[in-house]
């Protein structure tokens, strides 16, 4: 836990000196009258949840998925968001080829649904979390939070670290959350 926080701090620091995360992603959109909020040039403000993810060396898969699902701008907006951010290792635990398949344009809706299952509109701080608490995620399905001896899990996935962002909170988790099958 502590270890992760440390990495994140370094990542945040490194990021704050760096350039904008989404500038390449939005290069194609510059023909439009303006890119979304992710393209705002601002190296002073506290990073938002997207910049936190982009700044982390352990979330390259998540960032790629957010880009493929076109959620970079939405998550750069005012929020507030609680984002459960699976690490690259968590994505790697999925059956081989799953991620490659999901980021294909024809699977955008499925990918969006999965990502929306990782986002709650509202900032749930660690100290607000109660054992058994349910959060109705952006995709309208619930996740269940558990808290035992100060350790938080979400749908059984372990929370490895928590990073406060300007527009919400990022919980780093060790598994990808899969929405329940619809009847």
């Amino acid at each position: 836990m502590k270890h992760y926080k440390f990495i994140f701090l370094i990542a945040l620091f490194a990021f704050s000196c760096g350039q904008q995360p989404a500038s390449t992603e939005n290069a194609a959109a510059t023909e439009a009258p303006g890119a979304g909020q992710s393209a705002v040039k601002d190296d002073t403000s506290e990073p938002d949840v997207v910049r936190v993810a982009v700044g982390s060396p352990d979330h390259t898969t998540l960032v790629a998925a957010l880009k493929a699902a076109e959620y970079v701008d939405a998550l750069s907006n005012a929020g507030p968001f609680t984002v459960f951010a699976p690490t690259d290792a968590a994505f790697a635990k999925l059956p081989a080829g799953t991620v490659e398949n999901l980021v294909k344009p024809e699977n955008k809706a499925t990918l969006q649904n999965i990502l929306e299952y990782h986002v709650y509109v509202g900032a749930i701080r660690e100290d607000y979390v109660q054992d058994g608490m349910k959060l109705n995620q952006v995709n309208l399905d619930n996740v269940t939070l558990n808290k035992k001896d100060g350790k938080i899990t979400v749908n059984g996935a372990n929370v490895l670290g928590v990073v406060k962002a300007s527009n919400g909170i990022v919980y780093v988790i060790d598994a990808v959350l899969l929405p329940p099958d619809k009847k």
Partner: protein
Amino acid sequence: MKTHTIHRVLSVLVVLTTVVLWQGCKPKAPGSVTTGDAASLAYVPPGKYDEFYNVVSGGFNGQMSIYGLPSGRLFRIIPVFSQFPENGWGYSEETKPMLNTSHGFVPWDDLHHISLSVTKGEHDGRWAFGNANNTPRVARIDMKTFKTVEILELPNSGGNHSSPFITENSEYIVAGTRFSVPVGENTDVPISTFKENFKGYISFISIDPSHGEMKIAFQLKTPGISFDLARAGKGPSHGWFFFSTYNTEQAYTLLEVNASQKDKDFIMAVNWKKAEEYIKAGKGTKSKAKYAHNVWDESTHTGVSTIMDEVLQLDPAELKDIIYFIPCPKSPHGCDTDPTGEYIVGSGKLAALIPVFSFTKIQAAIANKDFEGEFAGIPVIKYEAALHGEVKKPGLGPLHTEFDNKGNAYTSFFVSSEIVKWNVKTLEILDRVPTYYSIGHLSVPGGPTTKPHGKYVVAYNKITKDRYLPTGPELTQSAQLYDISGDKMKLILDFPTTGEPHYAESIPAEMIMPNSVKIYKIEDNNHPYVSKGEGMTKVERKGKEVHVSMTAIRSHLTPDNIEGVKLGDEVFFHVTNLEQDWDVPHGFAVKGANNAEILVMPGETSTLRWKPLSTGIFPFYCTDFCSALHQEMQGYIRVSPAGSNVPLKFSTGKIEDQASGAGQ
């Protein structure tokens, strides 16, 4: 010779044509670089008029602003709930009573929503209404003078957010409380007794059809939840009103978490015709309540505040058939009825879908008692029984929906920062455009009426960031205008707005412009201190009060020399503008005034109170550049010690000191 002339004319024509063509190829404005002909679509040439008046709430400035569409030009800020030193609103003696409440003088409020008066569901151009969110009130603005002419306080309300939405023939505007509060004799209760003691009240405010005066017709006692937004039924649903609610969890702390526990809150459907029947049958109960009713009298140019002491109330938990709840996903915000009156669009602001309810189905569900249970004694209709359908995955965080004249809806999405166009009947998503950034309300001209004017949609955004040249941490608000005349929405203009606009309405210019008042007739001025000519000016002492009845006309104030005021006196400058000419206001200011200036329109009388704190000579002057000799429009008032025997005297143009030669 003749050929030569023809040649010369031709060559001039060729040059002219070339210039015209060349000008035509030049970019019209910097904005046109972004989207083709955007600039020309929003361009109103110098001296030409806009197509629409855009009446915009000022949010935390407590005012209402008037813009033009499509140019986005700001024409006027109308002071409503907040003091406005620029013209003396809330500072002048005449306007102070307009801001009186049961809590005393309240100099600021938060104006969120606009309703323009309607007849048969269509704009009639008579009045604009606005709500005060903080100290619950509603205001009426006369669209002939663009002046706030009435403010009515709402008792038993914690915060008037769900307001001032209007019925099809301007029978009522409504006011629903955003914060439920304990009411009645004992309000000193623990906060934790929320469920037991806190109540929500909905006021139905009747509008006099001929002169517009407002009156609380009745209040509905409703459960202690939060009422967010509302819309009246129309056409077949006329006689009903729909309110969105949140915090049906009845949380009283950390609502951010605790008011988002349930998957569904409610849309509350109110059968107000049924409420009227109960009142006729004598089922209403009169309840004690203290609230202010402030009315502007145009003949005396003065506001009068009356403290009222009772309201008529109905309890829908006992009087069945007035209200019904319909489950609606996740803290619904907007609750908008389409132009046909058949569809009610709920917008669960934390949900990623838009439920659309059918009035016909709601009626059938009520008739068949298709209820899933009760909430606080009120029947809850089954979600599916009331539902026309859902717009699936339209975007994130739907807030508000407006309509065009072609059966389409436009919904704003705060979280994903976009406007999504969809078909009301088929629920099919037709188009989406980003907004910059994080849109709140949106407005289509005539959008809430039975006959939308269509053509444009304006996005009122909550975040500005890098849209304009930065001005430090505090930025202007950002609005965007989209052309919606084609299949696809097209961004044509960015424009900054003052205050923090929430809702706005737009009305065709021709419905307002011909009625706009140019001057107040001096002969109709019945102000007690009016001077209808310079010969009628005077200075009177009434104990410690000195009343100066003064006139202003290009380019002098009468009187302009005043002596005999003593320390401890209060001076009232009653300034009458004698001009009877369009757009020649005079202003008045005196050194050391602890309030503001006053701006006096032609034919009007306005009063500035001034209490000097030291002796000496104090200049006063006209603050509105009125003429070539505006700078000479000034005077002096002398303040002597408390016990002095300087006699009271006043004059203009009288030269007393013949010896020194000064002034000759």
